Structure formats: C-alpha cells, structure tokens
C-alpha cells in the first residue's frame, strides 16, 4: 500500500490539493449533516406551529454527548465499541470519495457507485451487529428491522444509480457527475426522473425518516433505528449520532450532485471549491427542506407496509434502467 501511495504522490502533482479537497468534503458532511437534521427539525416545528430547537441543536447535542461518561452495557464485546467507529469512518470515507464539493476527490480508484453502496452497507452491518451485542430484546429487534429495510432499500439504491451509470457509460461517480455537467439535456430525460424518484425513496429509508421510521419516537412497537442504538450512551452515542447525520448529508449531497450537478468544482482552485461548498449547502438544504415538508404531512407507514414502498422504489429504479436502455 505504501508503494501505491508513493506512486500516487509521484504521478499526481495535485495530490495535496486533492487530499485537502477530500478533507474539506469530510468536514462539510460532518458539520453539515447535523445542521441539515437541525434544519429539518426546525421546518417541522414551524409547520406544526412550534418554535422548535435551534438549527445548531444537533452540534450542541454532540458536544454535550462527547463530554459525558462512556457507559457500555455489561456483557458486550469489542463489537459494541467498534461499531460506532466503523459507522463514522465508513461514512467519512464515503464522503471523501464521493463528488460533493469537488468532482476530483482524492481516491479516484474508489469513487465508484458500488464502493459507496457497499461502504454504506458496512456502516449498517456494523450498527446491526452492535445492536445485537448487548443481548437485549430491543437491540436485536431494531437490528432485525434495520437489516430488513436495508436489504430491500440497498438494491434499489444500486439499481437507481445504475440507471445513471449506463447513461454515462461509467460507474465512476465523478465520471457520472462530469458527464451530466457536459450533457445538461440528460437532466430532464425520463430515466433520470424515474431514478430520482427511486433514490428519494431510498434516502428516506436509509436515513430513517417518515414514512419509513420516525426519528423522534421511542415507542417500542414502531421504532427501528432508535431500538438498535438504545444501549449507546455518551461518546459512543455521539459517534452513532454523527455517523447517522453524516449518512444523511452524504446521501442528500449525492442526490443533489447526481441530478443537479451545477456549482460543483470541476476544475480545481480555491474559489471554485468555495462555490462548490456553497452550492452543496444550498442544494442539500433545499432537498432537506422538501423532505421535511413531506414528513409533516405524512403519517408513518406500518412496518410491514414499508417493504411495499421500498419495492416500489426498486421497481421505479428498474424501470429507469430499462427506459434508459430502450431510449438509446
């Protein structure tokens, strides 16, 4: 690996700039994720006639949690300690390789649709194993439900992005973003619109929003994600919370840049990167706001109706691919 790194340094003079850009993306997702959650909470509160917590509440909570005492459930193994770390680091790696602020991320040899989907799966698997580790009724139930939802939403995610990959003739994410930048007419093509619809369903499921899961519930019969992380406290809970927020920011940023790539830094340079950052913030905030507005007006689905919604997402994605193939 050191050899690979050495050749990388030797062959690409702009490596340092690209490492910086990737680090910026990770920080943006790390800070932006909780802010997006705060924004969604604020919009919901306002729509329901409440003042609601400030938008920065997520970051404040993180600061509070990370200072608290670390408590772990007795009888847990190393898995419970590792799971939050794996969740955060897989999300961070995804953020580093996905074109969010810049279309030239550091690890070009990993910025692949398949890699991002399976890195997200890695976080889900880690969290599900962590949920099973304490051996409680809730943790296992949450893991089971989260894996069930994930098992159906993940294929939909892969196939939806596949529709774009076929159009751009590559599964490399920067490649897809660059191709859509140079072909603005693609953005209104039917397969893109269908894939967008499928992706929105997936993002809602993966981030545990209404109508799939209610992030603010603690009622045992309905919760998915909250049941799985019930045993975490203090710094561990901070990691889980920030990891989940990062996944939300990442998925929203991915949707934003795959379908509305304008503003992303395609050339390199400080100003372009600043524009990219602002554009990313604006686009994800707009999507987050619309998700929040839909949440206010929707009721949570019964758990066993959720797979129907997700299967619908999968079918939409498959239709998107087929449309793309027929329309060639």
């Amino acid at each position, binding site marked *: *690996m050191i050899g690979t790194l050495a050749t990388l340094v030797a062959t690409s003079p702009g490596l340092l700039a690209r490492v910086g850009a990737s680090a910026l993306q990770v920080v943006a997702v790390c800070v932006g994720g909780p802010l997006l959650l705060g924004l969604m909470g604020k919009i919901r509160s306002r729509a329901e006639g409440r003042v609601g917590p400030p938008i920065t509440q997520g970051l404040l909570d993180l600061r509070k949690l990370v*200072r608290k005492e670390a408590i772990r459930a007795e009888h847990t193994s190393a898995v419970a300690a590792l799971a939050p770390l794996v969740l955060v680091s897989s999300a961070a790696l995804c953020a580093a390789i996905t074109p969010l602020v810049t279309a030239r991320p550091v690890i070009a040899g990993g910025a692949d649709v398949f890699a991002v989907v399976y890195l997200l*799966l890695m976080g*889900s698997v880690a969290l599900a194993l962590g949920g099973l580790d304490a051996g409680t009724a*809730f943790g296992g139930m949450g893991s089971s439900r989260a894996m069930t939802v994930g*098992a159906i939403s993940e*294929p939909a995610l892969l196939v939806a992005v596949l529709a774009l990959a076929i159009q751009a003739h590559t599964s*490399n994410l920067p490649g897809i973003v660059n191709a859509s930048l140079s072909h603005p007419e693609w953005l209104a093509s039917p397969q893109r619109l269908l894939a967008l619809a499928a992706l929105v369903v997936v993002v809602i499921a993966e981030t545990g929003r209404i109508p799939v899961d209610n992030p603010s519930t603690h009622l045992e019969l309905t919760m998915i994600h909250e049941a799985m992380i019930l045993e975490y406290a203090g710094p561990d809970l901070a990691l889980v919370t920030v990891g989940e927020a990062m996944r939300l920011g990442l998925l929203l940023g991915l949707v934003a840049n795959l379908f509305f790539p304008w503003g992303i830094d395609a050339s390199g340079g400080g100003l372009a990167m600043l524009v990219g950052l602002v554009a990313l913030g604006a686009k994800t905030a707009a999507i987050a706001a619309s998700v929040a507005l839909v949440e206010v007006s929707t009721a949570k689905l019964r758990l066993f109706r959720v797979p129907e919604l997700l299967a619908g997402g999968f079918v939409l994605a498959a239709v998107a691919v087929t449309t793309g193939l027929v329309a060639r």
Partner: protein
Amino acid sequence: MSTAAYFIGLGAASAAALLGAVLPARRRLLAAAVLSAAACLAALVGAGDVLVSGHAFSVHTAQVLPLTGVDLSLDPLGALFVAATAVVGLAVSCYSVGYGVHATPSRIATATLPAFLATLLLVPAAASVATFMVAWELMALTSLLALLTDHRRRRETRDAAQWYAAMTHIGAAAILLGLVLLAAHAGGQSFAAIAAHRRQLSLPLTSVVFVLTLFGFASKAGAVPLHVWLPRAHPEAPSPVSALMSGAMVNLGVYGILRVGEDLLGGGEMWWWLVVAALGVVSAVFGALHAAASTDTKRLLAYSTVDNVGLVLIGVGAAGALAAGGQQALAGLVLLAALFHLVNHALFKGCLFLGAGALQHAAGTRDLDRLGGLARKMPATAIFFGAGALSISALPGLNGFASEWLLFEGLLQGFASRSAVTVAALLAGVATLAITGGLTATAFVKALGVGFLGQPRSEGAGAAREVGPSMLIGMGFLAGGCVVLGIVPGVVLPVIDRATTAGLVAGASRAIRPGLGLALASVHSEIDPGLLVGGLLVALVVAWGAVRLAPRSAELRSPRRAAAWGCGRDLQTARMEITATSFAEPLQRVFADVLRPDHDLEVTHTAESRYFPEAITFHQRVDDAVERVVYRPVMAAVAWWGHLARRVPNGSVHRYLAFGFATLVLVLVVLA
C-alpha cells in the same frame, strides 16, 4: 515439474486414504492429515506451475483402465479448479486433526476424507470421456461415504445421503448420456479429439449434448431447481467434508459446464448461455432468501452456496452469451469475474463451514436459536468466522467485494451490446447481484450477531471453549486468504486470467489493467481496495482520537459497565434476547410468497374458561418450496408406481414361471 508435482499430490492423497484405513486408531488421524496436507501442497505447486506458465501437460496410460486407458491432462482451466481445491484441502487437512481428536473417527471415515480429496483433484485433469466419468463417479461415491460418517447416530444423515445419492446419480446418468453421444459422433472419446471434430457436429446434436450435461453439472453445482440435496447433505456431513463439498465439489459443476460448453463444443448458441444465466438468477435469489430465513448454521451456509453458485453461473452465462454475440474481450472480463468469485467463494465458504464445525464442536449444537455469546468464549473462531461472514457480505476490503465489483463492472460494460436479449439478461444479472447483496448481509449479520454476540441461549453455548490450535490454523488460513485477496485482488487476476484465456473465450481479457487493485482498461472504472482500507483505517483512528481527546474530566475517561436496559425491570435473561427465528421473521414475512413458511399455533384453554389459555405452542418450519412443489409429486408418483408394480410379483413361484414362459414366447415372436 508440474506433472511430477501433480502426480505426487494424487499419490500422497491416495496414500493418506490407505494409511487412514490401515493404521491403528492413535496414529491414523495424524498420518492421514499430514499426508493429505502434503498432497494439497504438491497439487497446488503443480497447478500453480500450469497456471503461471500457461503450459498444459498430458499423460496417457493404457494400463490402468481396460479398453480405453486413462487420459490425464491439466490445462490452465483445470489447474484453476485443482488449485482452489488444494487451498481448501490444505485448510481442511489441518482442521481435521483437531476435529477428530475428541472422538477418533472410524477407519472408513478417516480414509474417505483424503480419498474424496484425491478424486476432487483428479476430476479437473480427466481428459477423456471414460476417465472423466470414472473420476466423476469416484468423486460421487467417496463424497457419499464421507457424508455417511455419522449415519449410526443420526437418522437425518441417512435421509440426506439418499437424497444426495439420487440427485448425484441422476446427474451423472445425464452427463454420461451426453458425453457418450458426443464421443460417438465426434469419432473419439478423448477431449482433444472431440474438440478437434466439433465443427462437423450438427447443431441439434450439440444442443442436446449441452442440455444433458448442463442438467448433470447443474445438479452437482446446486443450481435451483436441482439444489435440493445441498441443504440436506451439507449440514449432515462432518464439517471438513461439508467444507470440501461446498468449497470444492460444487465448483466442479461449474467446471463441467465450462469444459463441455466452451472447450468441447466451442461456445455454441447464445440460448445455451442464456439458460445458464437464468439458472443463475433463480439460484441466487432463491438461495439468498432461504439463507436469510434459515436458523441452522450449516443449512444457512448451504443455501448461501446456492446463492453464490448462482452468481457464478450468471457470470458464466453472461460470458457465454456475450462470446456467442461476438464480444470476446468483454466475455473474457465477465468470465474472469465469475471465476474470481468462484475462487473467493471457495475461500470464504470453506472458512465458514470450518467455523460452523468449530461452533458445533464447542457448543454441541448448530442451531442458532441455541447459540449466542460465543465471541467472548471463542474469540479466535469469532474473528475467523466474522472475516468469512463479512467477506461473503461483500464488505469493501474483503475478497467478496472485489469479485462482485468485477462482475458488476463486467455486466455493466455489456449494456453497450446490440443484442436486446443479452441486455435483458445482463439487467436481470445486475438486479440479482443487487438483491442478493442485501439479503446475504442480513443472513450473515444474523449468523454472526445471533451466534457469537449477546448472551448464551443454552447450557451448551454457555459452556463452550475455544477449539484447538489445528482447527484455528485451518480457519485462519482461509480467513487470511479472504483478507489478502480483498486488499490486493490484482495479484491473482493474471493467474485466473490464464484459465479464462485457455482456449475458452478466444482473445479474452486484455480488459484488465495490471496492478494491485482492479482497473478496467477500456473505460474509466477502477477500484483500489488497498487505498479504501487505508482510508478507512485513517478515518477510524481520527474518529477514535477525536472521541478520546474530547475535553472530559479524568474520572470519566475509561468506559464504565452498566446493566443493559431491561424495560424498567431489573431482570435481563437470555430468554429475552432476539433469536435467529425472530431476527429473520420480518424478512420472511415480506417474502412469504417465495418462502411459504408453515405455521402451527396450538392454544390449550383452561377447563374453567376458554378466555384463559393454559398453554400456547407455536411451530414454524420453512421448507423448500421447490422440494414441495416439484419433487414431492414426482416422488409420490414413483412410489405409486412402485406399489402398483409390487402386485405383480406376489411370491408365487408358478406365477414367476409363467412370466418366464410368456417372456420367452414374446422374444420368439419378436425375433420371428
């Protein structure tokens, strides 16, 4: 060198079988294990030499088999399968020492494992119809004997052996019919002669041959609907045998399809390969669903084998279809991905079956509902089983991810094809890859999380101890292989590429750029798992450091242990934990149409009032729907026919004499 090494390997494996049968109980286990490990090493050297140099060797002796003689030849395609078998065999040989140490297996059991191994090494080298069928049947017989090891103690073992024997022999009959038909029309029974004459064969004939052999090989590979023996035989066989069956024997089904379809018949028609791909799609989805619903560790692994064989068959079928459509380079890429996945499957499934054997050994059961908490009692087994489970779930940095990525990319490139049927097949393949990914992850989170984490659900699991060093070395060897191939997959691709280029798909695989990672040459698609793992580790350290260095008073630094949340009660027992059955329940309910679970709820009321139940019993079974729908009616029909036929011979000698006379008259009439 390769010839000598390969034959030393065969000889050592046979000697191991012989010594296992004759030596006294104290010595035979170790002697057989050491000799079979040496056999695997020698075979690995021989096969490796063929793979690296690309030169095949062939040997003909007229002395061994009467009439035809024996033809053995190892080309790169066969060598790949020999090498995969040898790697799994090496781990299994080491593991078998510790596995048999508590209850020394019988002579026959000790002898059959190396004998089975020898036949597995022999089949890919067979170079004529007669040699191939003899080797194939020897493999079937030795594996059947190995499967029967525990038949005295368990009724299920006999049942499984009957299913396996029936399926494998129906398959062998179909293969024999196909190959004999082929040899008769091609003017020779050696594979070289058949391949040389294939242009003179008519298309209907080759199609019949392909379909017949496909039936036989698919039943060995465990493709749906011919998979029914797998979920019975794999759990009942001793774990070293199931590791060999699943890690090496099912591969040979794929080998047969490639050998006959691509090598002997030269690729043939596109629809052949679309049938193969369709078998793959059905197998992958069906296997993944059943694996997600299974609660028996080894049954879960067996269904997961059906799933992975399905993925390999999707690749093989897509490669054949693309080659028949004239896209040779792309076909080479897809076939390379399929063979890479097959090698990876041998590694991780071998590791998982050995791990399941360690579980059974230590906890006395392989029922996930009775396991739990083993990570603390058997940490090394947990790590190795975990490595296998995460590899098969295709997590980045492990080998399953590398081969699935390559398969995905290959199928994706194929979408540029002009043939609409091929594109539809590729789309089905990609969708299957996506669907099975999530289901497999669920199945293995269940196996790992319910089996190793949480609290023990039975006394056996509570009293479990770590298994001995030889078993750990066997598992660790395969788990290490999974990690190495996951991080630097690029190093084995040129070797596997030899197998794909060896006369199968002409002008194949220049589609891969050399390097440690994976990169396609034609398009901008690449992945470097080494870099991904490096990035992941950096992120992990940074996240850990950030939490450690957070401003916090000194006494709060080290984690404190506290009781888990018990819903307000101060009582948390293992009975409250989720079981494998309940873990799988949501998914099972979602896919109830395919899985068709049987529920049986019995409520006994108290005598006083029927509003107060006295006891509630609930039974649930997830039977194989294919078995119920396809096999049961056939078996019922056969049984009915048997009953009908039994009325004819009623024991009366007069009647038998009358039959004899009637037959004689009939023969005379016919002859006249």
